[in-house]
């Protein structure tokens, strides 16, 4: 109850204070209006430090961090001499504020601005699922028991060698910031300026500006020097700023409207750098073995050689977008809209002196996007109208040059020849992008008003995607989709209205991970057995050849068939009681995966009631049911070394 006291004291004080203001304001001419609000919040049960608290009411709530916080807000409006101003603001805490306003000068120049800021508490992954010691040292002698049970020393939370366990098949984790509560403060400031020229009403200029900032700490994870069996997490300070400037000009010439806009985006990152130390990278079985270019490490430094490897970096980038649009109102029944959008996105964090282990390629990486689309809308009669539309999208990404450090291989030419077909096996190559693709879309829909109270709609859409570098990413070369839709909107009577429809999708060669699962019999025997070839590099020690490239089944969580009916209705039961319901079912499957099918059943249903027994009283109630079931193949991960 102590926390309630400041609210009451402040409320009484402000009542007296505001009462004085009201007398003064009433005496003046009323060309303005507004409001102020002052008060406070008391968090009667603040968030415990032991609670990660990233869910429920805590996730976006700033005021629960303190027992007491203020609440200050207000609005202001005035209109005089062709100058109109409208503004509002609310301050809850340093991490929770919002303001907005607009200013119009004779409706020639209109300026709008909005700002908001809020907290987002992020999850803290305690990595409890990363503890798999399949060979615990149960007999306590600390000795390895065989080829797959070599001794492993686990670092403790300070990175110092700690307990010893036995077993090559291990995965474990260390949380270097176990008590950290991660959060990000996100703020957004948007500005819009519009210029109308009274002498040329067909010409308009607008400038939009958007500034977004994310600041705080988040959890980052990587491997430790012990590679993939040891996952380490820590906190990382992040500070990202996104600045968009978007001028636009539009001109209307009779039945034709033209529009051009440009957008320049700067994404700047001032995060802390995080690194992990490596040594003996992937050295394999024996210290004297020459390692083949994993991470670019040459392993010439010996067991005491460490190298810092950066991880969890977000690159600085820019984006420039040009958009041209034309709309032609051919007549009262026909309209054509066409547009072309070109954009270039540039990763600016990689143009530094070539250093592949740090991800520097000596040049920027750019992604070009070309998008053209057109739509024809026509009303054939009062009862029938249709739309025809099409779209083409081309993406082209740079291919950075990868040059691993030269390695010494002691394989014979005949042995090396066994591996020459594997894409990323070479020392030098161009990394092919999965973005490179061409996407086509064409569609049509028809609306037919059969009766005064019955409207039918039919639609068909064709999509086709071609991927340039499908073989490098083990995905299908192209995917084709056919989408059919039929729906009806029926006003049964004055009180009852129904809206229902059915959508069917047929997809050939859905996007999937080819060779995603199921290595064939014997794969793990082919994967290097320690003890062989101890004095030279052995490609069979890598997973690529015996396991990854040998897998026989595809995996995907996307369907090649979808059946999706839906219905919703509104029932005006009585003058004081309204109801609505909705039901949507989705069945999706993919039976083209070469292994077990993937299947989905989903139901979303709901009922809403609004009861207004008298003008002063409104009651509402709603219920929503959500059910989603996936059937998929379960694949167990194999840790071996």
């Amino acid at each position, binding site marked *: 109850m102590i926390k309630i006291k400041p609210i009451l004291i402040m409320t009484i004080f402000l009542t007296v204070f*505001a009462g004085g203001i*009201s007398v003064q304001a009433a005496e003046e001419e009323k060309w303005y209006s507004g409001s102020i609000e002052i008060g406070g919040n008391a968090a009667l049960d603040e968030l415990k430090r032991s609670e990660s608290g990233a869910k429920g009411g805590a996730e976006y*709530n700033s005021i629960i961090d303190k027992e007491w916080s203020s609440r200050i807000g207000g609005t202001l409006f005035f209109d005089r001499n062709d100058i109109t101003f409208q503004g509002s603001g609310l301050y809850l805490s340093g991490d929770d504020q919002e303001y907005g306003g607009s200013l119009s000068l004779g409706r020639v120049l209109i300026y709008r601005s909005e700002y908001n800021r809020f907290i987002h508490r992020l999850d*803290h992954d305690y990595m409890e699922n990363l503890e798999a010691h399949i060979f615990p040292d149960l007999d306590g002698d600390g000795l390895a028991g065989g080829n797959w049970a070599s001794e492993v020393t686990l670092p403790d939370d300070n990175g110092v060698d700690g307990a010893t366990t036995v077993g090559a098949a291990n995965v474990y984790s260390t949380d270097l910031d176990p008590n950290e509560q991660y959060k990000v403060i996100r703020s957004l400031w948007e500005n819009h300026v519009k210029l109308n020229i009274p002498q040329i009403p067909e010409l308009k200029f607008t400038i939009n500006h958007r500034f977004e900032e994310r600041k705080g700490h988040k959890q980052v994870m990587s491997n430790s020097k012990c590679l993939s069996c040891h996952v380490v997490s820590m906190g990382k300070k992040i500070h990202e700023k996104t600045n968009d400037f978007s001028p636009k000009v539009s001109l209307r010439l009779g039945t034709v409207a033209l529009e051009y806009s440009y957008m320049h985006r700067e994404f700047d990152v001032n995060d802390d750098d995080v690194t992990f130390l490596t040594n003996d990278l992937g050295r394999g079985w024996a210290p004297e073995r020459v390692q083949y270019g994993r991470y670019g490490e040459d392993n010439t430094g010996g067991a005491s050689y460490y190298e810092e490897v950066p991880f969890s970096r977000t690159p600085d980038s820019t984006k420039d977008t040009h958009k041209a649009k034309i709309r032609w109102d051919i007549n009262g029944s026909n309209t054509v809209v066409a547009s072309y959008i070109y954009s270039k996105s540039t990763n600016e964090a990689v143009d530094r002196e070539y250093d592949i282990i740090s991800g520097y390629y000596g040049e920027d990486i750019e992604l070009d996007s070309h998008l053209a689309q057109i739509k024809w809308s026509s009303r054939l009669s009062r009862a029938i109208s249709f739309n025809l539309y099409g779209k083409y999208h081309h993406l082209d990404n740079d291919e950075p040059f990868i040059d691993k450090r030269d390695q010494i291989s002691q394989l014979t030419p005949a042995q090396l020849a066994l591996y020459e077909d594997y894409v990323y096996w070479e020392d030098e190559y161009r990394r092919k992008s999965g973005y490179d693709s061409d996407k086509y879309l064409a569609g049509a829909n028809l609306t037919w008003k059969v009766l005064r109270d019955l409207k039918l709609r039919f639609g068909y859409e064709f999509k086709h995607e071609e991927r340039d570098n499908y073989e490098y990413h083990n995905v299908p070369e192209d995917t084709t989709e056919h989408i059919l839709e039929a729906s009806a909107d029926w006003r049964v009577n004055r009180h009852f209205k129904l809206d229902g429809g059915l959508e069917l999708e047929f997809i050939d060669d859905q996007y999937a991970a080819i060779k995603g699962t199921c290595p064939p019999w014997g794969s793990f025997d082919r994967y290097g057995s320690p003890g062989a070839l101890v004095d030279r590099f052995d490609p069979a020690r890598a997973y690529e050849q015996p396991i990854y490239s040998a897998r026989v089944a595809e995996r995907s969580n996307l369907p090649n068939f979808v059946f999706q009916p839906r219905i919703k209705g509104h029932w005006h039961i009585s003058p004081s009681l309204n109801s609505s319901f909705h039901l949507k079912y989705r069945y999706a499957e993919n039976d083209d995966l070469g292994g077990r099918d993937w299947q989905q059943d989903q139901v979303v249903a709901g009922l809403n009631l609004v009861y207004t027994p008298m003008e002063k009283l409104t009651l509402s109630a709603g219920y929503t049911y959500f059910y989603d079931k996936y059937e998929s193949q379960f694949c167990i991960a194999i840790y071996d070394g």
Partner: protein
Amino acid sequence: MDYRTEAHTILTSISYNILPNWSISSDLAYTMGRGDITNFDDFNSHRYDDAKLDLDVSSVNPNMPYLYDAAYTNQMDSYSDLDYEQLDFNLSTSYIMDNGIGLHFNYTLFYFDDQDPYVYGDQGNTVHVLSGFLSYRF
């Protein structure tokens, strides 16, 4: 295996103008969510066998005689379990005087019960927030 998620959500609200200048309103949102894996046993019968998957390691670990034996991974289906309840309740009242001065009080309860915490720890929390403020319209 099947992974199933299910959620029930109830929303209610009431708004009552007791007097022309005095209103009271309340809203409640309750969600109960569940998630689990079923038919996990299929894993045992449909796997692609490999020497290391059934390797006899009894000499090293008599308590787990066969490597990756499903009998020793029988808790995996519980890792993805989801079981939570979320309740957001709000009660507010406003009184506006003839001179434009208003009094507003608001009580909010945030309740999240995480009954099956896993990698993110127990995310449950209960927070009561009481707000009061004065407004003046001019």
